[in-house]
């Protein structure tokens, strides 16, 4: 079942390779939407069939390279299933959004189908090497998306992105090898490594392995001070690429913390959880403050991503702090972290697609150049307004559910840090509202050709962005269907980390 979900897009891509590019772009975009929709339907079916016990479901294990301790091991639990669902939803949104794509449609569609397989594969992988293969391929795929379909200084941004994140991935590989060599018998299997806990005791070797894995994941997340690749990559990527980069690829970093760093190195994690908390809070505050200073709409959203991922890092750090706190609070923090990944995936994906609309109409992201767009484009203004409110954590939207749980769960273990992180919410609210105010209110002003006007959302744009917003509202109003899936697994994870 999972393998079908993962490899369906790739199989579709393999079929489409044989179709000549002259067949017309509708063939490619149409089949992309169909495949993405079918994949989402499969994920929904898997969700419905998922047993809420908190264990691994749909597990499958085949030997791959037995003599090197590598197997094809897949499965989902409450930590990964929501992310699989977000990935499938976001790729469908990108497929619909890209119906209007005109530049090199065939290779664009093939690349995104490949990226979908890679992203889904990563969230289902239960073997470190399988995880790494997907992790690395996501970087390669995104490099080509930015370099070929980006704008501005796309080649430099793509190169920075590739070099920086590749450095992270190789640090990750060294950490994985460290885990592999520590286990007896040598294995890369995540489930087996969780069970045997080869680096119990948390001595220097464990600390070095955690350092390597932590740096690798921190680059991808990204947290301060490893975030410098993110703003240029986002600014110069095409809209769909930015949405996937922010919505899916960043989650690979934070997901790595809950899937690999915490359960496989529980003792070392507890020992260094304080450092993680500090990095999280610094990311929250730094991301918010730098976002405040941005004139470029996309760069601003990129820095708010650093801020939002900072909450996740804060939560997973706090979950490792054992001192004087009950397991329930820490479990709440992990649940909040996963909810935040889901919520941020949906909302930032939507925000970047909206930024793409801005660029499509007037080829500029400069917020100072726009004014009063609410007049000519009321739907665009309304949708952007709602997404922004959701993103700053207003009750009734998914962002509130996530951030409330994170802060409530972290307050006990890390009181000062959580209090500081609250400031981040305040700043983010301020800067997002200021952006809304500047772009949409006041006298209408559009850069470039003012007499041509500003066209409102087109059907394909509405159909891709509004469902993401609707999901965020659904989670905000009726969160139980999501939390029921996440909670048992975060309790299991906390059990592993505390023992």
């Amino acid at each position, binding site marked *: 079942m999972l393998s079908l979900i993962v490899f369906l897009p790739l199989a579709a891509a393999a079929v489409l390779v044989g179709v000549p590019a002259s067949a017309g772009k509708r063939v490619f975009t149409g089949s992309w939407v169909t495949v993405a929709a079918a994949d989402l339907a499969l994920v929904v079916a898997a969700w419905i069939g998922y047993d809420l016990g908190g264990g691994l479901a749909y597990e499958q294990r085949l*030997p*791959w*390279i*037995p*003599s*090197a301790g*590598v197997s094809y091991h897949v499965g989902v639990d409450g930590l990964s299933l929501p992310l699989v669902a977000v990935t499938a939803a976001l790729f469908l949104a990108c497929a619909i959004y890209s119906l209007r794509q005109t530049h090199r449609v065939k290779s664009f569609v093939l690349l995104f189908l490949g990226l979908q397989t890679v992203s889904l594969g990563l969230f289902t992988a239960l073997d470190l*090497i399988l995880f*790494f*293969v997907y992790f*690395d*391929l996501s970087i*390669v795929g995104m490099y*080509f998306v930015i*370099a*070929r379909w980006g704008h501005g200084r796309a*080649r430099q941004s793509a*190169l920075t992105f*590739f*070099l920086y994140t*590749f*450095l992270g991935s*190789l*640090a990750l*590989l*060294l950490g994985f*090898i*460290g885990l*592999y*060599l520590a286990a007896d018998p040598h294995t890369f299997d995540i489930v087996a490594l969780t069970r045997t806990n080869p680096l119990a005791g948390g001595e220097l070797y464990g600390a*070095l392995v955690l350092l390597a894995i932590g740096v690798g994941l921190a680059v991808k997340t990204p947290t301060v001070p490893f975030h410098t690749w993110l703003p240029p990559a986002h600014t110069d990527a095409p809209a769909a690429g930015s949405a996937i980069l922010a919505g899916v690829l960043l989650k690979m970093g934070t997901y790595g913390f809950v899937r690999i760093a915490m359960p496989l190195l529980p003792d070392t994690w507890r020992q260094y959880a304080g450092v993680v908390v500090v990095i999280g809070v610094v990311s929250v505050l730094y991301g918010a403050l730098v976002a405040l200073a941005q004139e470029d709409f996309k760069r601003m959203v990129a820095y708010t991503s650093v801020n939002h991922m900072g909450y996740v890092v804060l939560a997973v750090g706090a979950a490792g702090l054992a001192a004087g706190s009950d397991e329930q609070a820490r479990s709440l923090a992990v649940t909040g972290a996963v909810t935040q990944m889901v919520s941020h995936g949906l909302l930032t994906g939507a925000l970047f697609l909206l930024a793409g609309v801005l660029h499509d109409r007037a080829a500029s992201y400069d917020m100072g150049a726009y004014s009063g767009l609410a007049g000519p484009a009321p739907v665009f203004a309304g949708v952007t307004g709602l997404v922004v409110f959701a993103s700053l954590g207003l009750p009734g939207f998914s962002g509130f559910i996530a951030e409330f749980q994170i802060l409530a769960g972290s307050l006990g273990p890390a009181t000062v840090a959580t209090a500081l992180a609250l400031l981040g919410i305040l700043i983010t609210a301020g800067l997002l509202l200021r952006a809304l105010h500047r772009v949409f209110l006041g006298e209408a002003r559009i850069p470039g050709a003012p007499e041509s006007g500003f066209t409102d959302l087109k059907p394909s744009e509405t159909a891709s962005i509004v469902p993401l917003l609707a999901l965020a509202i659904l989670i905000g109003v009726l969160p139980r269907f999501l939390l029921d899936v996440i909670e048992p697994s975060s309790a299991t994870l906390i059990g592993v980390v505390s023992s």
Partner: protein
Amino acid sequence: MSPAALTPELTLTAGAVLGILLGSWLPRHRQWVVRLLAALACLVGLAATAAAIGGAPQLVFGGSYAVDTATNAGRVIVLAATLLTICLSIDTVGSHPRETEFYVLMLLAALGTIMLVGATDLLLLMAGYLLASVPLYALAGLVKDALGTEAALKYYLMGALLGVTMLTGITVLYGAGRSTGYATLAQNLPGAPQAAVAVGLVAVLAGLLFKIGSVPAHFWVPDITEGASTPVAAFVTTVPKIGGLIATYRLVAEALPAAGVNWPLLVAVLATASMTLGNLAAFFQDTVRRLLAYSTISQVGYLLLAVAVATRSELALPALLLYLAAYAVTNLGAFAVVAALPHAPNLADYRGLARRHPGLAAALVVCLLGLVGTPPTAVFLGKLEIFSAAIDGGYAWLAVVAVVNTIASLFYYLRWIAPAFAAEPETYSEEVLAPAGRWPALGAYTAAAASLALGVAGGVVLPLVSGPLLP
């Protein structure tokens, strides 16, 4: 000893002798028969090796030649690489006045390389060195232009000098260990004067480092890669490395395991120097061949990692053999793309390749990202094993150096990939990206596919290269 154990070697010899005889009598337009014969010799050798894999390891040739896992793996890699090079050379060498000589010399060089792989005696090692070197000097000078002649002369002078150094080292080790056989040396060297052992080892290594093109014996690599014809460049930067590295591994693991000389550190330093200098020099090269030349120098550095931990980790030998196989197909694949586009010597000439030849562009991406070690290509698996071996053997710092170097190498490989996917230049010329013919392109597709297959099906290959050395 039964001659059957040496079938691949005998086949290559017979192929070379028959080839030179046939070539002397054939008219020039029928010399393709010799090419066919050479390919046939490689195929028969491959089949014989395949039959021998899994058999009991044995010592032949009066105990001076081991037929074990490493030898069998070395045979397969060398023969497959030679076959692939023949495929690349068809359009370049076809109907050349020296076609016969080209293929005969190539068979002899392959034979010498295989002898290096199996030698467990210093004198046989020297013989293998000469047999693997002398034909290549001639091959390098086959294109009689200024660049080719200069390269061949440089290659020859350096090879002769370091060959003599190696012979001196063999004499010293013989004096110190009272034997040239590795097994006896291993017993006698721990009691011998350490200074003599160290001098002898360094001198023998000098010759082997020349063969593998590692720092500090690498100065010929860029000249040969740029000056010789593309198939020769591909062969010289790929095949002798296989022999030289396995020979170095055997030498340190079998003759010097207990000697007081700290050879692991020496090899580790050489590995670091090779990776780092190769990468730094590759950074701002503007011609594809020089870029590939320095890339091969840095790749040797990664391969030397496995030699450094030869006696400290059980993973070292499988890692070395797997990486060698992966490197051979991937490097040949990159050269095949160069051979397929003979009028595009510079990186900038590759602009618009993805539009003009999507297949070649895909092969180029697979091979170059393969050389970086991106999964799921073969070199990724090789790097995984080599890093594991290095960390397991207590050389974690060397693995970190290798990782940093890998990132650095990504930069210059991307300098080649990026133009290939950029839009075509405005002053666009049909001729720059005109393909040579279908054979090099076929070679590129084969190599790229093999690189992917070896990576994905590593589970099948890895058990074949895992096995102890003899004795």
